[in-house]
């Protein structure tokens, strides 16, 4: 492609938060009439980069050039006025206002008296939306419409004002397949009109379908930039995860000592878990004493699978049984009673109760079993709590210290102590070593295999592929909310996992598909 002056170009951008570099010398050049995909895992720096492009953040170093001229966007309004528009994951519109009002919010057409000219507004709104194939009553409140149509309104709003750059952050995450098609067609139209589009998505199918170029970020650095046609899926995934394709899995000394026992009883069987837009017929099982890894990119349904098994949130279908007994009414409380325990992904938001003491946090889930007729005796709790604090090496000044004052690693150990208190048969661990220091990480990993040896079935999710591969006996691989493969102990390696993640879901069927079905893949490594 002959590249004239880039519409928007950033060079060597550095952005630090509290001394930690979120972006470390990142460059990006956007050409008009080109769709540029921006991909990367959690914490790679995508959102920070977008926020710098749109004036939400100011870079600590580096330059921004817009249509060849150096610029500095001090506020989001500056970027907008210059012609850069952003469509966020959550639709930033006013649900109670009419479609037309939303479309023209902030620049309503006015009549000679300075009042809003509703007639003109409604007419123009209808015309604009018709251009996107949306035919609705523009006088209705926005919230009456489907999410897909709302997204279209957001896009129409974003580009109706002569914008040269449109940034879309995960625009398809809540859309139906049909609506995705419409969105991709819209992007195509923008490209033909000469607009530069930044497309952020975890869905590789979409990225390969719509993008011309791709930039991969990892840990705040640009690790790849190039034409999408010149990179394979496997290479792209390996760049995102930072693992070499050729890098052979390390000598698998790890759990060989604990070769899993095929005769061990199943402790957990989940079949056909289904949740609209999120999970598609996900099935997995865990034997007593087994660590099953759950691998996949961000947004592939890892956490959602754990949550579904735990009975948190609505489910459109599927069954979970523990020790052969199917669970009826699903809720966290019934799961706990059945012996399933969860350590959620976001420790601060979903895990600890910061204002409560170490002791109260540890016993929180086990209180019903530790109380007599609803009465709690601190003396009795202290016995259990002190044992766990000692065993897990939790560093707290006393069991009465508020958990909010502890370090991340110790908070995570408190959560481990909480689930151990429940004497679980199945442990669902969603990124248990996230944000903890190296020492605590090793301790937590050792504890996980110790628990498995004691006969607990463990489901292990990690944002680090290495941790899943090294810590699991079997690995279940997810993509777009569906199981795309199960690797047996002999086959578990980073290469194999990445290959499964990257696999094209039968390209022919890509259009309109809503998730690959396991049997559609001709891979020998799959579950039979």
């Amino acid at each position, binding site marked *: 492609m002959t590249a004239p002056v880039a519409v928007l170009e950033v060079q060597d951008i550095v952005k630090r938060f509290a001394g930690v570099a979120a972006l470390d010398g990142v460059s990006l050049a956007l050409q008009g009439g080109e769709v540029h995909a921006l991909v990367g895992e959690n914490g790679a720096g995508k959102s920070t980069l977008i926020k710098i492009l749109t004036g939400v953040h100011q870079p600590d170093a580096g330059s921004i050039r817009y249509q060849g001229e150096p610029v500095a966007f001090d506020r989001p309004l500056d970027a907008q006025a210059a012609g850069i528009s952003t469509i966020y994951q959550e639709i930033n519109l006013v649900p109670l206002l009419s479609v037309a009002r939303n479309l023209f919010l902030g620049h309503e057409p006015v009549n000679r008296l300075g009042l809003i000219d509703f007639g003109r507004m409604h007419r123009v709104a209808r015309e604009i939306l018709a251009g996107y194939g949306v035919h609705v009553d523009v006088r209705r409140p926005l919230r009456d419409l489907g999410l897909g149509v709302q997204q279209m309104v957001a896009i129409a709003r974003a580009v109706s004002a002569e914008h040269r750059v449109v940034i879309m952050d995960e625009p398809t995450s809540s859309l139906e397949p049909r609506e995705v098609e419409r969105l991709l067609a819209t992007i195509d139209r923008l490209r033909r009109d000469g607009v530069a589009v930044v497309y952020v998505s975890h869905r590789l199918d979409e990225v390969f379908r719509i993008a011309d170029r791709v930039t991969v970020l990892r840990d705040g650095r640009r690790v790849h930039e190039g034409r999408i046609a010149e990179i394979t899926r496997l290479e792209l995934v390996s760049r995102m995860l930072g693992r070499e394709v050729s890098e052979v899995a390390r000598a698998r000394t790890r759990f060989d000592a604990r070769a899993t026992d095929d005769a061990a009883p199943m402790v957990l069987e989940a079949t056909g878990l289904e949740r609209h837009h999120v999970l598609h017929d996900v099935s997995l099982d865990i034997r007593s004493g087994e660590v099953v890894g759950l691998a996949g990119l961000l947004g592939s349904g890892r956490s959602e699978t754990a949550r579904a098994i*735990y009975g*948190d949130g609505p489910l459109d279908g599927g069954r979970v049984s523990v020790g052969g007994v199917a669970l009826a009414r699903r*809720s*966290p*409380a019934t*799961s*706990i*009673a059945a012996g399933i325990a*969860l350590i*959620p992904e976001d420790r601060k*938001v*979903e*895990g*600890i*109760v*910061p*204002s*409560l003491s170490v002791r*109260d946090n540890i*016993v*929180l*889930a086990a*209180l*019903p079993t530790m*109380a007599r007729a*609803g*009465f*709690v*005796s601190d003396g009795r709790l202290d016995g259990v709590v002190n044992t766990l604090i000692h065993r897990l090496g939790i560093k707290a000044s006393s069991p009465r210290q508020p958990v909010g004052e502890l370090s991340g690693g110790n908070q995570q150990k408190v959560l481990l102590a*909480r689930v151990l208190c429940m004497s679980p048969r199945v442990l669902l661990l969603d990124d248990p070593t996230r944000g903890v220091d190296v020492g605590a990480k090793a301790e937590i990993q050792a504890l996980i295999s110790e628990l498995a040896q004691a006969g607990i079935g463990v489901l292990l999710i990690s944002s680090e592929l290495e941790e899943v591969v090294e810590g699991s006996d079997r690995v279940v691989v997810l993509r777009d909310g569906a199981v795309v493969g199960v690797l047996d102990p002999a086959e578990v390696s980073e290469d194999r996992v990445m290959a499964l993640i990257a696999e094209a879901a039968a390209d022919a069927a890509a259009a309109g598909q809503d998730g690959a079905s396991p049997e559609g893949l001709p891979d020998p490594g799959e579950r039979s």
Partner: protein
Amino acid sequence: MAWTTRNGVYVALIVLIAFNLVATRGFATVDNARLQLVQVVPVAIIALGMAVVIGTRGIDLSVGSVMAISSALLALYLGYGAVVAIAVALVGGLLVGLVNGVLIARFGIQPIVATLALLVGGRGLALVIANGRLTEIFDPTLGIIGSARVGGVPLVVLVAVAIAVVVAVLITRTTFGRYVVAIGGNPEASALAGVPVRRVILGAYVLCAVLAAVAGIIQTARLSAADPSFVGNLIELSAITAVVVGGTPLSGGRVRILGTLAGALLMQLIGATLISHNLPDSATRMVQALIILAAVFVQRDRALS
């Protein structure tokens, strides 16, 4: 937690009492002590329930109207005997609490909105029950409740102390109490830990409303009259003030029983002090406002540290 947040209310109370002992004539008398204690009882009882609700990150604005309802029911059913009338009044409170709790826990309506609805509607209901009139009450049992003393201590004060002990045990020694502060501290984490969040929240609002009904009965007995248009007016604000001044954060996650009682007493004594020094009621209100701001300011400091 900062020392000032934890103990500020006690320091303020001691300073105020010391000031009065020196500067206010007639303060250090048994009669005055009785009077102050009796007057603080309704607010104190309601503040105890309010503290539990606030502990769950909620708020209950309907307590004054619940007082009015229980007062009106008491007068209406007195013909069946005092015991029946009191029971009916308590059940009335319980029902209002259930409605609050269901609206909030089941339908997810914000506590301030749900209980605001009952603040307005409850007062109306009380007026309907009472036919819009003040009813004078001449009942020996209620007379005893209103004015009897045990060992020189007014019965209503003993009732308030007993309630405080029960609520304190509930909060510190039962699973319900642990759940209340866990939900207030982090509702998402509590739900994932299997805490029956909805049931606990429902329980908190029922408890608060029943205590408000108790306060309504006591107030009616003391005044020998049911006056549904005035009883409990603005008491929700006094109760919230007592809770906040007592060191329970409005953001939930902690319930301080003793602090709440001290907060109620502090507000009562400030009013009494200003009155006995011939300052008008308007001055009292402004001083109360300053104290609320000071309490919130101290808590803000804690949140930042």
